[in-house]
């Protein structure tokens, strides 16, 4: 997550630890609710996360099942809402 005073903070979680997974899910849900843009990389492509399915722990980047990416299998970067300039 890009951050004013730190460069970026990294939030890592162990998929085998339910409390860490829960914390990651809450963080992703909260960020999307606050308007953060979350980007993930799939191969050479970058996608913006459209939604997050907290029940299945997947990022949704499109409208088909093939466009779902498990949170445990990708690294994401979150950017705060834009103030213009």
């Amino acid at each position, binding site marked *: 997550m890009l951050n*004013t*005073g730190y460069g970026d903070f990294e939030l890592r979680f162990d998929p085998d630890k339910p409390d860490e997974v829960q914390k990651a899910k809450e963080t992703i849900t909260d960020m999307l609710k606050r308007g953060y843009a979350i980007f993930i990389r799939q191969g050479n492509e970058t996608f913006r996360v459209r939604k997050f399915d907290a029940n299945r722990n997947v990022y949704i980047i499109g409208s088909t099942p093939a466009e779902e990416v498990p949170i445990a299998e990708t690294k994401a970067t979150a950017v*705060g*809402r*834009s*103030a213009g300039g």
Partner: protein
Amino acid sequence: MGEESERKIGKDLVTLAQASRHLAEAYWAREGWSGVPVPAPGLDLVLEPRYRFKGLEDFRWNECYDEDGTRQVIEEEPPPAPSEFRIVNSWWSDRLQMTIRVIHDARGHAHVGVRFEDRLSFTIRTLEAAAVWPIEAEEKAQKKLASLIPADLFEVYMLTGHFPEISKRSQLTYLFRRGRPTIVLRQNDEVSYPLCALCLHPIGYYGDTWAGVMCPTDEVIAHLLMMRGSEEKYWANANQHPIDRPAAGV
């Protein structure tokens, strides 16, 4: 006096950049994912309207301490007196390189005024804003950027402060620049011309500068990811400055 002499530089008295880092660490645990922007003396802080600490825009420093720990008062300019004049229209003149304003007086009579935007003033104010960026944050951001672009482009970025990338979607060329808006060009075998400069700051920025509340390379990363992952939103969210305006930073 006794209380002041007990204050330790680096512990009780910190620089703006140190304050920025402390705030980021303190608020991380409280879901302050983006950190907390630090107001810079003499500059207007402009924050995203729904940002949780939006009230920081009204914060003004009224004192600071010099390197010896001696307190200095920061005088603030009084707000301007209410004016009988009202700006009713304005536009940028390419030919005159200034903003033309139409102003109405109290009786509704129209007058013409001009506003100069000075590149040097932008540069100097941006230098003042740089006091809030921790150097560690910039170094960290550069490491992250190195993981996002090819090594040769990262070298170009370190040497010149900018690097190009062509959008796979629109075929436009984006020139991402450290501490300046991103320039967009239409380039092909037949033509090459700039379209505009895209200015976008996550969370906030300092008015009449090129400085955002995040360190410059973090802003480059934000521009790059938005272009790659959501080009249409990037254009929708950014301010599009004509290339010859001082705000474009060319």
